[in-house]
Structure formats: structure tokens, C-alpha cells
């Protein structure tokens, strides 16, 4: 049994190594043609001319993920604080389940909903915002597109909410009660107690959880594919149509099967995506792990696994 289990575990390592090597080999033609640097940072993705510079896709991925964090994390942390500190006990269980249920909705259903509900309903509001606040960077006057970076970021924010809030909740519950009681005993209001004794303690874990959410947002494919607008050109405003690495793979793969360079370009996009999520996730794990050690609670990193 020992030998068998060890062999299975070692096989997982071999499989992952093969996975990485295989992707690299298959993406090689495009890296040879344009160079790794040229492929990632050239602002020109033109399939009909056979030019593959993935910058618009990389930027699209990062912009939508950043928007998701910007919108999603404050809400997620607030929900976690509310559930651990303010929520009436009777409500807590059911509210937790409701927030967790957000994770059970499949990505394609989010996309479907966003396409038929969010895009038409939010368009006037987006137009108003773009006209009124055109001085903010990355917001410009002019017609907002239906599908755009912002909608994609918003739907991603909803999708990462359960995982970020679950991890924040776990971390917040590891704050030692004496620390909270001490703050209250010194006359702090509930909010001052949260701000001064809970948030600093849980900060690293919350940041780690947000990074895990970021990893999720970067790799999310179908919902984004549906609402991003499929336009491989760098937008000037967050209300412009764009494209992401994952979406380009989902959309173009079938037509690319017969063109080796195009296929290699998409696999290269997958590789870039893999490296991005790997970076983000490694940082996240490290941070959650550290804050765990500080609180000596062993299950925080596992809290988000099922979501």
C-alpha cells in the first residue's frame, strides 16, 4: 500500500512536469517567430495577417481582474466582517449559505445572465458615468460599448466574492478574543475595535485570500468570453470592448486547429495565463500560510478549496 500510494503521488508530479513541457513545446513555433518578449508585449493580434502580439489580451486579462478585485474585495471583506461581528446569530447560518451559493452558480450561467441582464440594464448608467467622469484615467467620453471591460470585471467580482469572503471569514475568526475584548474594554466602539484590533491582525490573510480571488479572476474563461466583446485591440476606456487570454483561446481554438502558428499562438496564450496564475497563486498561498502560522489555525488555506 505504501508503495502504491507513493507511486500515485509521484505520478502526479510527473504528469504536471509533462503538462508544462508539452505546453512549452507546442507553443515553441510562435515564440521562435516573434520571440517570447515580442509575443507577450507586442500590441498587435491580427489573425488574418498571421501576426500574434498578445499585449491587448494580457492587458485585457489584467484590467478585468483588477476591476474584479477593486469591486469584489471591499464587498467580500465587508460581508465577512458583517458575518463575524454584526450579524444576528439567527441570520448568520443562512446568510453564510447564501453567500456560498454564489460559488455554486456555473460560470456559463453568470455569462448568460450578464449578457441578457447586466449589459442592457447597466448601459445607461455606464454612459452617464463615462460622460460625467471622463477626467478619471481610463474613462473616456464617447459611446460605451455593450460588452466591455467593466461588465467583465463586474461579473468576475461577483464570481470571486464567495472565495474571498470565505477566506476572510476564516482569518477574521482566528483573531484572539482577548484582543477584541481588550479594545472594547478600553472604550472602543465596535467599529474602532474592528479597525484597530481585527483588521491589522487579519490583514495578511485577507490579502492572501484576495490574491487567490485574483488567480481565479485571471483564469476565468466562459463568463468573460461572453461579455468581453471579442475585440483584440487595446481599449482606451474601461467601457470599451476588449479581449482576454482565456477568451481568445475559447473563441479561436476551433478555427486555429488547422493553422500551426495560430494554434501555437493560442497555446502560448495559455502558457502566459498559466504562468500568471502560478505567480499570483504562489504569492497568495505564501501570505495565507504566514498569517495562518501567526494565528496557528491549520485550516485556513483549505477553506476556499471547495468553492
Amino acid at each position, binding site marked *: 500500500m505504501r508503495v502504491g500510494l507513493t507511486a500515485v503521488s509521484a505520478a502526479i508530479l510527473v504528469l504536471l512536469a509533462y503538462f508544462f513541457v508539452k505546453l512549452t513545446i507546442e507553443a515553441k513555433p510562435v515564440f521562435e517567430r516573434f520571440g517570447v518578449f515580442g509575443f507577450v508585449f507586442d500590441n498587435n493580434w491580427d489573425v488574418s495577417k498571421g501576426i500574434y502580439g498578445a499585449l491587448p489580451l494580457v492587458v485585457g486579462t489584467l484590467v478585468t481582474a483588477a476591476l474584479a478585485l477593486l469591486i469584489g474585495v471591499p464587498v467580500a471583506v*465587508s460581508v465577512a466582517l458583517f458575518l463575524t461581528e454584526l450579524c444576528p446569530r439567527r441570520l448568520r447560518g443562512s446568510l453564510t449559505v447564501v453567500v456560498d451559493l454564489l460559488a455554486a452558480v*456555473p460560470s456559463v*450561467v453568470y455569462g448568460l445572465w450578464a449578457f441578457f441582464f447586466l449589459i442592457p440594464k447597466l448601459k445607461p448608467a455606464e454612459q452617464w458615468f463615462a460622460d460625467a467622469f471622463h477626467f478619471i484615467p481610463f474613462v473616456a467620453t464617447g459611446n460605451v460599448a455593450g460588452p466591455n471591460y467593466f461588465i467583465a470585471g463586474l461579473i468576475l467580482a*461577483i464570481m470571486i466574492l464567495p472565495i474571498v469572503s470565505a477566506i476572510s471569514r476564516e482569518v477574521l475568526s482566528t483573531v484572539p478574543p482577548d484582543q477584541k475584548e481588550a479594545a472594547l474594554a478600553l472604550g472602543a466602539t465596535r467599529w474602532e475595535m474592528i479597525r484597530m484590533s481585527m483588521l491589522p491582525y487579519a490583514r495578511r490573510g485577507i490579502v492572501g485570500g484576495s490574491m487567490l480571488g485574483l488567480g481565479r479572476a485571471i483564469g476565468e474563461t*466562459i463568463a468573460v468570453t461572453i461579455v468581453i466583446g471579442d475585440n483584440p485591440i487595446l481599449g482606451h476606456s474601461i467601457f470599451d470592448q476588449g479581449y482576454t487570454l482565456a477568451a481568445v483561446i*475559447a473563441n479561436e481554438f476551433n478555427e486555429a486547429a488547422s493553422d500551426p502558428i495560430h494554434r501555437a499562438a493560442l497555446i502560448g496564450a495559455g502558457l502566459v495565463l498559466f504562468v500568471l496564475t502560478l505567480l499570483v497563486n504562489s504569492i497568495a*498561498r505564501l501570505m495565507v500560510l504566514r498569517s495562518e502560522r501567526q494565528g496557528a489555525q491549520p485550516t485556513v488555506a*483549505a477553506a476556499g478549496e*471547495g468553492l
Partner: protein
Amino acid sequence: MESASLPSPLPPVSARRRRADRLARSLLWTATGVAIVPLVLIVFYILSKGLGALSLEFFTTDPTGNFFGDQGGVKSAILGTIEIVGFAALVAVPLGVAVALYLTEYGGNGRLARSVRFFVDVMTGVPSIVFGLFIYLTLVLGGFGGSSFAGWKGSAALALLMLPIVTRSAEVVLQLVPNSLREAALALGAPRWKVTARVVLPSAASGIVTGSLLAIARAAGETAPLLFTATIVKATTFDLNEPMNSLPAQIFQDLKQPNDELVQRAWGAAVTLVAMILIVTLIAKLIQRRSRVQGAP
């Protein structure tokens, strides 16, 4: 509020601090409300749009592929999802549990165990579409098993996705099995493998089932890895070596069609998919709750 209940009252909280407290509290209330709005809207929307699409024909006919006239139901997609996810679970659950058992029972903190743990974490973060690409490159392109696109290749992609989830959740519950149980069994003279198989595994069983069901729920909603492994077809098939339809893929294909009836079918399929996933999730949570009540891990 808190200070009022103390026997020797502290100096009263200033109006500014009280205002800040009230503002922060109402912000937290609002944010929680805001977080629930999307879920309510989504549920309302898919029910109001999707329930109308459901009928006996919806569940018992295959998509016809016609643009006009009779478009058919989603029978092949429902059965395809069950087959693909079922086969993926059949592969991923035993493998995932085996890796978790290795990590808790044999690996300890050795170098192999640490690197396995690290790479399982890496796998959790890999975007599902990249797994799809990998399976396409290795199994579909090579024509492995005498077919190009096939249901079992979709299962393989989903299994890669499920494996780390199963392993991590199983590892957590296996660690919760008290060491005294293992020691007692060993002291009675049981060999190590028997302790693992007859003592450790059964006492962690409910937790492992919960984790596996959650992994299944997660995989059932995945679209991206199926698009170029199992693909989208019309006919029902029970042969895993043939291209196979699935609910998420069918929704993805229907929703951008300029035809209201096809869009309607997408909403109906969405209701069906969400209901299937919810059932699996609820069963998982019920098992979890029951084992907690009993006090077992």
C-alpha cells in the same frame, strides 16, 4: 453601547466617534445586501426565463440543430454532463484520495510529500481552459484511443480539475482523525495498511464524500475544458469514445444565437444545470452537517 453596561462608566463616547461607528455599521449592512443582490437577481432571472422552456419534450428530445422550426430539447446535453462528470469522478476521486492518504499516512514532511503538496496547490490554480488545452494536445490531436474528440477526454480534463480539490479536502479531514485511533490499532498488532484502510479511511469517510461531491459540483459547471475535448454535438451517445454533448457547452452555443427560441432553450438548460449542481451541493452540505452533529471528523 458596550461602555454603558460596565459597572464604572468610562467617559461618554464622543458624537463624532459614535457617528463613525454608525456609518461603518450601516456600510457593512449595505455591502452584505449588495452581495446578495446578484444571487437573488440571477435566481429570479433564470427561473422566470427558464421555467417556461421546460417541458417533457425539453428533457426527452435531442437538439435538432435546425435554426427554424423544431429545435428540440437538451436530452443529449443532460445525459452527456452526467456521463462526463461521472466518469471524471470515477477517476479523480480514488486518485485524489490516494494522494491525500499518501500525504497524511506515509509522506509526513519528507521531500516528496512537500513537493506533492506544493504541486497539488499549483494544480488548484491552473485555469480550467489550460487543462482543456493540455488534453487537446495530448489526447485529441494524437487521436489517442482511435478517436479525435471524445467524451472520456472531456472527463480527463475535468478529472485534472477535480483532483486537487479532492486531495486538499480529503487531506484536511484525514488530518483530523485522532492519532490515538491509529496508535490503538497499531498497538493491537494491525499492519499499517490495515490501519489505513480499516480505521483511518472509514472515520474520515463522510468528510471525503463531502469534498468529492463539492468537486463534482464544481466540475459539472465547467464549460471551457469541454469545448475542445468533448465538443458540442447533437445526438445522445452512451459511448464515451465519441464526441459528447454537455449542458454548459449547449448553453454556450445557444445563448448568442439570434433566435429567441434557442436563447429560451439556453435559459431552460441553465435552470436544469443549476438545479443539478444545487442538489449535489446540498447533499454534500447535509452529509457535512450530519457528521458534525455526531462529533465525528
